[in-house]
């Protein structure tokens, strides 16, 4: 009868969802494992290994990520319009990916990895399977958390210009975030934390500056 038919249908649907979700989780776990490896390479910047060497190792994993995201996209695209249904199953991994890519990009270029650039690096096609804006922003906040430690360790190895460079970058980034009208949610909390990163970098810059260690940038008076 109709009742049995209905539950039969439901059974099939729920199983399909379950299978889909498991496939998503499998890929997400692999992404997580890849980011962990990338992160452990990037941690070497604190041990003052030359940046190009460090970046090279980490970059080697980007292709792995591309591949994984293309598998993820494929799965998600099987059910059009349900990107956000399963979003919770991989968003935290996505945020970590953004933070790592943005950190690498900054190490290389000194600039912020833009949203479109992040999508590009990961081979995402924003019309089909894009990078959610909030995930991108949270990832950027995570990256900001790495900077104070980086600055401290760079100064210890004698790179006295680093604090000034990072301070400029972080001041601009913080100002950009302030333009956004954030709700009282996770992103807002993460952004509020960026303030402490900024202060710490200011303090380091102060320590360097008051001892006259910062080289030429003091001369042209800018900041």
């Amino acid at each position, binding site marked *: 009868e109709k009742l049995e038919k209905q539950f039969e249908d439901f059974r099939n649907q729920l199983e399909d969802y379950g299978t889909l979700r498991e496939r998503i989780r499998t890929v997400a776990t692999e992404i997580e494992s890849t980011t962990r490896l990338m992160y*452990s390479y990037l941690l070497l910047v604190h*041990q003052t290994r030359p940046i190009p060497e460090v970046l090279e190792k980490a970059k080697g994993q980007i292709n792995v990520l591309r591949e994984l995201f293309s598998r993820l996209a494929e799965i998600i695209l099987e059910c059009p319009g349900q990107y956000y249904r399963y979003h919770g199953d991989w968003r935290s991994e996505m945020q970590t990916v953004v933070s790592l890519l943005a950190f690498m990009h900054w190490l290389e270029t000194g600039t912020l990895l833009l949203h479109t650039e992040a999508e590009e690096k990961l081979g995402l096609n924003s019309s089909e399977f894009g990078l959610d804006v909030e995930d991108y922003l949270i990832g950027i906040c995570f990256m900001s958390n790495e900077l104070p430690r980086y600055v401290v360790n760079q100064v210890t190895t004698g790179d006295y210009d680093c604090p000034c460079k990072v301070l400029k970058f972080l001041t601009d980034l913080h100002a950009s975030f302030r333009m956004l009208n954030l709700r009282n949610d996770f992103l807002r909390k993460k952004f509020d934390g960026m303030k402490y990163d900024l202060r710490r970098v200011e303090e*380091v810059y102060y320590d360097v500056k008051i001892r*006259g*260690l910062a080289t030429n940038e003091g001369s042209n008076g800018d900041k």
Partner: protein
Amino acid sequence: SDAATGGDSESSSSSLMKEAFSQYAQYLNDLNDKRERVVKASRDITMNSKKVIFQVHRLNKYNKGEVLEKAEKDLAAVREQHILRLVQELQGTDFWKLRRAYSPGVQEYVEAATLCNFCKGGTLLNLDEINATLLPLNDPSFEPLQINVLDYLLGLADLTGELMRLAIGRISDGELELAEKICKFVREIYRMLTVIAPEMDDSSDMKTKMDTMLQSVMKIENACFSVHVRGSEYVPLLGSADPSYSLLGVSDFDQ
């Protein structure tokens, strides 16, 4: 006692059941008694390992040999007096069955043993090496006790906290190089554990420990930073390499 309940003809299955339950009762009693003995041994291991750790913190560049020798002797005593009790209790599947009962003690022992070893030779005491020191405890009648990877890693995570305390103290005594060595060592352990931690059996404990560990690493880094920038003023001001200043002020107190 069967008599008390009447003892009629149908009760054979009931008395079979009673008999089986008296076996279960025996099993549970034995298990609980053993667990209690293991917990007690674990507490003793913890307490005595903590004492060793405190001893090591008394170390400076003058008493190093003496302090470490004493610490190693005390560690041996922990093995012979208390870990031996574990060996006597834990057989076969007990190693994992009662792990929660002895894990705190073993972790603390790992912390103490690796701390001593680092102070002595500047390297990490491996799990295999640590387990090798337990082998002499063996009596042919017992299976050897071998510390498992999880307890080793959990103990290692705590080690970084003690190393942080040591580093801060060493900087005070002008032993900058040692501090930097600790910094590198702890960073490396942190980096290694980053990859491994989430693979551990129940990683929630370890997650908290990782956060604490990062705090410790950063405390050492900040201390090194601060020594460095302060030291940077030395050269421009005096222009010569007077060795009495090179290791921060305190060096001249302890000579």
